[in-house]
């Protein structure tokens, strides 16, 4: 077979020509759409008012959101988080905005389908038009853009509590990680009920794996038995192995790092098979709909929730403001989380705009690094926002028990608690093995 040489040569020449021509563009989109006054030189900040602005005289700061909104596995969380954040910034604007700027978090909302490639693609699309990310949902997805966020000095609030975020300067995490929550839960039940053995059941990786690592560390610190980490897969019918492992090992405490459906199945069926120990579910295990599931009775008897802050109905000024801002919605802690995650970003923007910082994205990153406290309006202690120390891991967990009368089905059992395991643990990197 002889290749048409003429064609190849022509092609090569043309390609070379085109390559030379390609050089003309390039490197032309640093800076981006800076403000008209020249005071602020950062993309996503304009002196024009926001679309549908509350304060027509204010400029506008655009925040991007990349979440799981339609067909992905976490869409049931992504929706409420995104809604709550829209309500949060609307309230900020109604209070006059921040230093002459309104905040817009609704113009650049994108659906990542929980796919890292899509996430990365969407980030490329909106990055030139936004100052920072109000939400970047998921660990593998966020890891796919993290290098570029650092390169381009973009900060973002995560939508997960994996312990990895404690070590990333560009990620503005709030509250304790799964790893810390699991440690504090184990400590609590060792102290209260003299628990002697712990087991972890969860999805592998950044969530279940993170909680399991915390549970194992806490078991070691307390000198009690860590039975094993049973990795399980999503799906109501895929839990038979986990259930039989729990019933057989019969540990005093089981740390759950799964979704709500799996929680219902595991707790319900383990109880039906005679298990009488204590289930501790990490933050994403709970959904108020579980109270209508067949496992509701078992959950009321055996389940404790270990999360970074109080549930939807908790009585703090922050929770109260959130409920008012959202109006009439089905209570769900997706809202609570979206709301709480927004406070550090607000604090960072305030200190960046009012303080002596370069009015660039780099200046904003610097301002984030200087935050000593964040006013969470009582949802979290102020020191939870401290980012100045090297070891700025927040180690306090809220334990809640199931209460059908409460707004989202949970009431506080133990307000912010820090057990000896978490206090004494030397965090040097993400808890989970990857």
């Amino acid at each position, binding site marked *: 077979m002889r290749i048409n040489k003429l064609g190849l040569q022509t092609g090569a020449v043309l390609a070379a020509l085109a390559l030379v021509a390609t050089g003309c563009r390039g490197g032309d989109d640093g800076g981006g759409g800076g403000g008209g006054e020249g005071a602020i030189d950062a993309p996503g900040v304009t002196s024009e008012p926001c679309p549908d602005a509350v304060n027509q005289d204010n400029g506008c700061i655009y925040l991007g959101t990349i979440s799981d909104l339609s*067909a992905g596995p976490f869409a*049931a969380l992504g929706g409420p988080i995104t809604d709550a954040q829209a309500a949060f910034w609307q309230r900020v604007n109604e209070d006059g905005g921040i230093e002459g700027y309104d905040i817009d978090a609704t113009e650049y909302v994108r659906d990542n389908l929980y796919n890292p490639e899509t996430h990365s693609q969407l980030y490329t699309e909106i990055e030139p038009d936004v100052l920072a990310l109000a939400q970047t949902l998921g660990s593998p997805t966020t890891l796919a853009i993290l290098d570029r966020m650092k390169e381009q000095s973009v900060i973002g609030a995560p939508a997960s509590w994996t312990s990895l975020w404690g070590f990333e300067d560009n990620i503005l995490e709030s509250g304790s990680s799964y790893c810390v929550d699991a440690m504090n839960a184990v400590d609590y039940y060792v102290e209260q009920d003299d628990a002697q053995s712990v087991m972890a059941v969860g999805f592998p990786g950044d969530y279940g794996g993170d909680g399991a690592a915390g549970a194992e560390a806490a078991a070691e610190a307390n000198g009690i038995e860590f039975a094993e980490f*049973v990795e399980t897969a999503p*799906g*109501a019918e895929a839990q038979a192995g986990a259930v039989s492992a729990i019933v057989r090992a019969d540990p005093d405490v089981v740390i759950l790092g799964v979704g709500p459906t799996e929680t*219902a199945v595991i707790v319900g069926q383990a109880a039906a098979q005679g298990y009488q120990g204590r289930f501790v579910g990490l933050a994403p295990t709970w959904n108020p*709909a579980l109270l209508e*599931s067949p496992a509701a009775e078992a959950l009321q008897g055996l389940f404790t929730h270990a999360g970074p802050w109080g549930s939807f109905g908790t009585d703090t000024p922050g929770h109260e403001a959130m409920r008012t801002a959202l109006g009439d919605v089905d209570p769900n802690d997706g809202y609570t989380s979206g709301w709480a995650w927004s406070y550090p970003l607000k604090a960072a923007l305030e200190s960046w705009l009012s303080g002596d910082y370069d009015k660039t994205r780099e200046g904003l990153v610097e301002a984030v690094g200087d935050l000593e406290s964040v006013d969470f309006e009582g949802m979290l202690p102020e020191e939870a926002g401290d980012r100045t120390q090297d070891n700025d891991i927040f180690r306090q967990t809220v334990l809640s028990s199931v209460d059908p009368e409460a707004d989202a089905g949970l009431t506080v059992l133990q307000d912010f608690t820090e057990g000896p395991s978490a206090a004494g643990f030397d965090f040097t990197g993400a808890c989970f093995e990857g």
Partner: protein
Amino acid sequence: MTEFLEALIRGLGIGSVYALLALGFVIIYKATRVVSFAQPAFMLTGAVVTSYLTPALGFVLVTGLSFFLSVAAAAIVTALLALVLERVLVRPMVGRAVFVIAIITLGIDIAVRTVVTGYIGIGARPIGFPWGIETIQVLGLSVQIRHLVMMGTVALLGGLLYLFFQRTPFGLAMRAAAFDQEAAMTQGVSVGAVFGTSWALAGGLAAVAGALVSTGAGVDRQLWVIALIALPAIILGGLDSLGGAVIGGLAVGVVEQLVGSYQRDYAPWLGDNVATVAPYALMLLVLLVRPYGLFGTPEVRRV
């Protein structure tokens, strides 16, 4: 032994759901020679419709009855939806390459599933199954009532399908069309009606499967993934065998549950979550021995 038998019964229960789904795949395949990837969407539709109907009917009827009536109604609604989609989007493609049609069914699946998922809301929707995850004692084994209901349903629907195909004129027409479309046409069989009916039947079966599978923990967004586990079941049984679909479905359920219960003890080196892929491994093993599944008809090839 108790544990083994309990796992076996669990497997037969879940397997019944796979069997219903597999029946749908096989009915469509026999009529149209296409594997319809829209089954997951119909399954989710059935579950969601049931979850809306049960509470609505619950006000007028005793619990229990309202659930089963809702499932029946959801099956009819889904069957109608399938009928319409087949008529509008699939029928014009008759005679085209089967894989082009398969991709069309896939597009239908994406669209329908997205619409239906929108009605699940932000939590898992309860389905209103009267017994939840309660268990009863049968011969010293504790068995979940819902697994018994699943087995009963597949027995009932399987029997009805058998009567339909063997004893009714239209069932005969469907068998004739599956055997040889052109010959059936010359005998006055409306092949278009056969296509439509096959989709409607498959949609209804998938809807029932969806409602049954949600009895454990309600309807959630990832429910449709279960429909994909029916794919090894149909290959196992043979693509064109209704009996094979039922046996394949049951076999897949049993293998999945047994592997889930015992693999950690006997073969931990396989890693976690092997149960979810065990049906596919089983399928590969069977096909090595029998390339057309256990009960499939070997294709006669002529030059």
